[in-house]
């Protein structure tokens, strides 16, 4: 059996034929669409490296079957920058040393974009830390990550750019 699904990935419609229903959204992005910015850490929902936005919400793409997301809007790390202009969250991660090896970073950044969009944490660092707890960082860049998220959020609110997420 083969299935044809259409996803909008970073604002581009992509139709993919799946000859196997077992493909996860993560594997589809990486193996079929060559979008390898989204990382595979644990592949079991335990680390957050695979975080992407689906219909505007951050989820773990490793536990999502691609076939059940037919018609979805997907946003990955590749879709954040506008040409050479970094997204405010990307810029803030650089400014605040929000990473070391960088493996968890695409997931952290997508998670931060989702967190800012959800607007539940506000400027409380403890709520930001808890709101980012679904993303593990083996290098323990957590202090920089929290600062980056708080700073980016403030800049985006200031620039009225929240919906640019």
């Amino acid at each position, binding site marked *: 059996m083969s299935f044809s699904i259409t996803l909008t990935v970073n604002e581009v419609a992509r139709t993919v034929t799946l000859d196997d*229903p077992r493909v996860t959204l993560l594997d589809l992005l990486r193996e079929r669409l060559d979008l390898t910015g989204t990382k595979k850490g644990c592949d079991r*929902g335990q680390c957050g490296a695979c975080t992407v936005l689906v219909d505007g919400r951050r*989820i*773990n793409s490793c*536990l999502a*079957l691609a076939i*059940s997301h037919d018609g979805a809007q997907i946003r990955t790390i590749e879709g954040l920058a506008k040409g050479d202009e970094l997204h405010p969250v990307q810029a803030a991660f650089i400014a605040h040393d929000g990473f070391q090896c960088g493996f968890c970073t695409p997931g952290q950044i997508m998670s931060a974009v*989702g967190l800012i969009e959800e607007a539940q944490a506000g400027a409380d660092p403890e709520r930001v830390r*808890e709101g980012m707890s*679904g993303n593990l960082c083996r290098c323990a860049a957590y202090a920089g990550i929290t600062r980056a998220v708080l700073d980016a959020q403030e800049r985006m609110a200031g620039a009225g750019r929240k919906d640019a997420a």
Partner: protein
Amino acid sequence: MKTFDYVRPATIPEAVAAASAPGAAYLAAGTNLVDLMKGGIAQPGRLVDIGHLPGLDRIEHMPDGGVRIGALVRNADLAYDRDFARRFPAVAEALLSGASPQLRNAATVGGNLMQRTRCAYFYDLASACNKREPGSGCDALGGENRLHAVLGWSESCIATHPSDFCVPLVALNATVEIEGAAGRREVPVESFHRLPDGHPERDSVLEPGELITGVRLPAEAAGFAGHARYLKVRERTSYAFAVVSAVAALRIEDGAIAEARIALGGVALKPWRVRDAEASLADARPDAPAFREAARIALADARPSGENGFKIELARRIVTRALTLAAAGTPDRVPALPASPFAPVPGELSHV
């Protein structure tokens, strides 16, 4: 992962018909099922994707004051629904203490109820496990069992149920709406999950093909909104299952407890309501001796299933603490660290 047929029904009757075939399983968000399939623990031959069924993603506040939560409502959407969180704050706090923001954005109400145990031997195909393979034995007995059950267990299975959400649901008399080939039925959440009782492979009373369509909370459950807390001990601050958890909900009138509700998580194969302990608080003053006595009664039948005797005393303390925090009043907003036992406790019990 074993391969499977994929079907996407358009209606509930179609879903029920498709899932009644042997080896079929419902797929909601997949945050538990896909994980189990990757590990080979679940090997459904057919996945019935209910994610696109219409009408199951609503939170309806009923005219009688109750609320009906569709089975496909996402855990995060329920916890952040303002009306819902205001009326059922302990449910919101329990939801927000579970998993991670990403998982809660995906995970559904029905999937949360149906999630399977986190016993490591259940996950390890090389181990004997009666729940995974009936009759094979239980390697958790005499194995690594610090986190296993202290109530309601038998030699056939000593696992615990991992859901946080279900703990306040049993305390608040929630019911599960079920639709099957034979029609609709409604089951209290308290009798939905099963103890091992000879069939540890069966987690719940759901029959093959039956679909959870929603969860209902009765109007009276909102009467506890002013004094309701969920507390959860984890092995790290966040993003971890409960070692022990408890919900405490009180109705306080004229300085005395009119009614108490208490349930525990992480202690048994089902969320564990303790009615005797609740009854001991009726008409009592909300003070430390009354709460300690209720906690003693709550754990009176507990016994270790292995190297987990510590959980009994831990559970007593968490019940006492949850009652103390509930008596102090529900905070305006779910705390930054939901259900955290590290939060300061008011008054004389600060050391328990």
